[in-house]
């Protein structure tokens, strides 16, 4: 983990509520896809944890959805403004388990961390299938960006206005895969848990205090003991998950 000041290079809307923010700064603490950063915003006490969409040396890309006051403030920020970030938080995905044909499933704001993951898996020569789930057509983002990486991309929308009608699990039935990586709302994660036949990795969300393991605000129970979503997570392996309800 590192604390550092980042300068906004770009902050543009991709859909009505999802924005892309590119930031310049010291990214050396970010070591694997699936990690997150924690952003300090003026006037707000706690930081905002946001997953990393992409990271190349010195540049960080975040895709975030405006859901509350903090992300609303972020959406109004402009290029040149500075942000205080904690970077390199969380465990991230284990790429060594992917096998030859990894399947990446992302729902809504669970889509962004799939980008850096897909990029790195493709760089390793893996044949990557990405299934993106959204509520409706005008909420779809990053379909072309994933395709440009060389991934096979499928889109599912809950209302059927684009791609396969239904959820990501409805678009995966004929896909042959060796391992899967997923992130999204909890009902989707549970559906993926049931629908998948191999081992896989799930990224979880929880309200956090610090984001770096100090406060125990985001603890969960797992098969192998208590874990902090921010520290031993956010990625848990399928075999470790204990659904609470």
């Amino acid at each position, binding site marked *: *983990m590192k*604390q550092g000041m980042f300068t906004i290079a770009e902050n543009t809307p991709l859909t009505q509520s999802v924005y892309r923010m590119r930031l310049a700064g010291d990214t050396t603490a970010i070591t694997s896809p699936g990690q997150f950063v924690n952003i*300090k915003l003026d006037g*707000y*006490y*706690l*930081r905002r944890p946001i997953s990393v969409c992409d990271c190349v040396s010195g540049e960080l890309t975040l895709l975030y959805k405006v859901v509350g006051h903090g992300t609303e403030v972020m959406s109004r920020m402009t290029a040149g403004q500075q942000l205080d970030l*904690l970077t390199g938080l969380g465990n991230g995905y284990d790429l060594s388990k992917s096998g030859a044909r990894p399947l990446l499933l992302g729902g809504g704001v669970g889509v962004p961390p799939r980008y850096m993951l897909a990029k790195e898996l493709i760089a390793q020569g893996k044949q990557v299938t990405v299934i993106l789930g959204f509520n409706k057509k005008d909420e779809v983002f990053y379909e072309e960006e994933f395709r440009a990486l060389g991934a096979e991309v499928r889109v599912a929308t809950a209302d059927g206005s684009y791609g396969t009608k239904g959820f990501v699990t409805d678009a995966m039935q004929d896909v042959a895969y060796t391992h899967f990586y997923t992130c999204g709302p909890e009902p989707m994660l549970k559906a993926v848990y049931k629908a998948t036949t191999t081992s896989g990795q799930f990224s979880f969300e*929880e*309200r*956090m*205090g*610090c984001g*770096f*393991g*100090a*406060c*125990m*605000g*985001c*603890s*969960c*129970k797992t098969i192998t003991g*208590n874990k902090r979503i921010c*520290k031993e997570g956010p990625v848990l392996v399928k075999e470790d998950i204990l659904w*609470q309800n």
Partner: protein
Amino acid sequence: MAELKVNLCGIEMDNPIIPASGTFGYGYEFAELYDINILGTFSFKGTTKEPRFGNPTPRIAECTAGMINAVGLQNPGVEKVISEELPKLKACFHKPVMANVSGFSVEDYAYTCEKLNACPEIGWFEVNVSCPNVHGGGMSFGTSPEAAAEVTRAVKKVTTKPVLIKLSPNVTDIVSIAKACEEAGADGISLINTMLGMRIDLRTRRPVIANKMGGFSGSAIFPVAVRMVYHVAQAVKIPVVGMGGVTTAEDVIEMMLAGATAVQVGAANLVDPFACKKIIEDLPAAMEKYRMTSLREIIGGIQ
């Protein structure tokens, strides 16, 4: 040359800065970021007789200038703290540490403190009779002078190290509780624990926190803490450790003028993991600004 040293219950500290229990784990997360030996000491994660998972999540709610937590004393239990956490702590922290202890009965407190008393890493006990978000325990001992005194006596009987009692602000008369602890043999008082608070999500119309309510902390509670530290320090002869919303070196000075011998920093660590380091670095300049040469000399120096 600014003199930061203070003496807390017979133990000399390089400076009065103590990360508060529950915001600093057992130290080693922060040791990855900076050398935590620059601290006066730190109060480790509240430890109980049995392992505890704590409350269901969400456990955290943001507030204006603060936060509410209802972690619920998650900890691995005293046996594992001694066998697993203290060795890791010892590897990165070489000063006497403050052992924060909670319980659900007088016997619990005595059991846990007696076990920890044998650990040479521990300099002081901080007995938490005030956790506001654990049902059926903790809190009840901190809300009556008799119960707080009973815990104090039981812990004193089984320990050889200084015992501070950590008090709750969620009471009618905190001074009477502090005095009862002093009379029962406490070596010091620390205050304030968090203030009971609650937030409601307007979309779902449900409490933000699964436990419904929790402990409010952060800079918003600082004036309340200063007032309570002042009242307690005026009423007891034993040292007082002040905490509640402390964020800056100037806050530390204010808390010491109110009567604190040492000062704990809590929620600020969660927002800025370098908060305590920055405060320690900022203290000499802040002291110079207010023409102070020794922190020891300003304790209770309010005019």
